[in-house]
């Protein structure tokens, strides 16, 4: 494939305790784009991110990042690759014993020999980019959910990665914070030239900012295309998901015995 694609996923299968989670996933993610992976809770979206980050190994198939097959790397190789990628966790995962400043400076101190004045300037620049330069002295416990997410975003761009993965970046945010985070993802992707993979089930917010969408359901890709194509799609799953319909390919009722038989009404009905 061309070097235009930063991430390539080919025939990827992953099972957990013999229970298949992902079944034959194929994806390509071009450089400099925002790609979103959508699907209901428990459909395997986060597992996909963990496979890209090398936290788990696939049962078969592969994930290639920057031309390297992730699961074939040894731990040194994996750590080298992870220096070029970062991940924004669902609730930020800030280090609670470090201040906002130290959280953003963490990777710089761990991986570089930059002098402290340079680190200070870089950290303040990263925090300025997410609008929280004034909060650098606060502790994570003093931040609101949206602010914590923004600090985590500043931390994830600390070493100018080539790939940023976002695990449910919109979960539990108020509408203002939601818009702020959405716009930041788009702006940072364009300004830094990174590739962003956003795993979410927030349809409206993500369709506004992304370049390409993959829909995953029960471990397989059921649809993919640009946001416009997805909005106009009449595929039943996509339609149900985008319009938030109660019943459809994803049923409202959990599989159960016939209602009448559960209520022991067969004799009365007969």
């Amino acid at each position, binding site marked *: 494939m061309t070097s235009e694609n930063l991430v390539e996923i080919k025939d990827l299968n992953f099972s957990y305790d013999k229970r298949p989670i992902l079944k034959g996933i194929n994806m390509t993610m071009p450089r400099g784009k925002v790609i979103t992976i959508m699907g209901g809770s428990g459909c395997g979206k986060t597992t996909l991110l963990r496979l890209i980050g090398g936290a788990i190994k696939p049962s078969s198939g592969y994930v290639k990042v920057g031309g390297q097959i992730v699961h074939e790397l040894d731990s040194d190789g994996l750590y*080298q690759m992870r220096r070029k990628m*970062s991940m924004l966790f*669902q609730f930020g995962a800030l280090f*609670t014993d470090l201040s906002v400043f130290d959280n953003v400076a963490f990777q710089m101190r761990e*991986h570089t020999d930059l002098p402290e004045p340079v680190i200070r300037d870089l950290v303040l620049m990263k925090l300025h980019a997410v609008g929280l330069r004034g909060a650098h002295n606060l502790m994570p416990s003093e931040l609101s959910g949206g602010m914590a997410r923004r600090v985590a975003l500043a931390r994830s761009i600390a070493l100018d990665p080539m790939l940023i993965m976002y695990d449910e970046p919109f979960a539990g945010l108020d509408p203002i914070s939601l818009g702020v985070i959405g716009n930041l993802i788009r702006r940072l992707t364009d300004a830094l030239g990174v590739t962003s993979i956003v795993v979410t089930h927030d349809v409206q917010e993500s369709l506004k900012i992304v370049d390409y969408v993959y829909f995953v359901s029960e471990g397989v890709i059921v649809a993919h295309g640009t946001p416009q194509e997805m909005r106009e799609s009449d595929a039943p799953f996509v339609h149900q998901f985008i319009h938030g319909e109660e019943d459809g390919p994803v049923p409202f009722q959990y599989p159960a015995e016939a209602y009448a038989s559960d209520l022991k009404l067969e004799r009365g009905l007969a």
Partner: protein
Amino acid sequence: MPRRIVTAIRGVGHRAIDGTWRLGYASRFFVLTLLKSATAFRRPHLIIRELYFTGVMSLIIILVSGLFVGMVLGLQGYETLQKYGSEAAVGTLVALSLVRELGPVVAALLFASRAGSAITAEIGLMKATEQLAAMEMMAVDPIARVVAPRFWAGIMSMPLLAAMFSAMGIFGGYLVTVVLIGVDEGSFWSQMQSSVDFQHDIVNGVIKTCVFGVAVTAIALFEGYDAPPTAEGVSGATTRTVVTSSLAILGLDFILTAFMFTGVN
């Protein structure tokens, strides 16, 4: 009926396999911690920070407990010894009890409940809030950055805390027997000095505290690292730390005492 028996046997088998697997996992974790300790020693501020949290923050409970244990020992010892007219030997009794047994054991039990539980809860919560996963995604090894500094800080703190416990206990015994009851001060100290042997009593006591330090800290770190990432999981792990550490301390104490003090008068 046969099915019940099969289920019961299967249950025992499962437990045995799980237990062995967990023991293997814990041993591997312990070896990894030792192998990845270089980072902690290259950056001593990481260990110093943990020394403050595990050592300095445990000082108050250790000092106060030591004082009271020594005072009680003094009272009880005096009560018994005066019947035989040898109340001057109370200094020896207090010092030997503390340096050989009570100092290492009680200080280690207190250390397990104060610092061990805190280590487990902190690491368990770091895991539950994905901080350890985040660290790993930043290409920073959590065992090298989080576990190893705490491990070495625990090992360094334990003998120092036990020494302070014993010193405070001897002071407590002195307060009760010499200052309050009026035992002769000269014989209190001189008998203590002549009967406490540096090699057999103090060095062996220090070896005990080092072993307890390794056991308590390793258990606390492993339980935290292995805790299920839920509120229930972390609380269960914290409880297990205190229970397992306490049992390990008492078991190890018996073994060490058997080796160290057999045949010593």
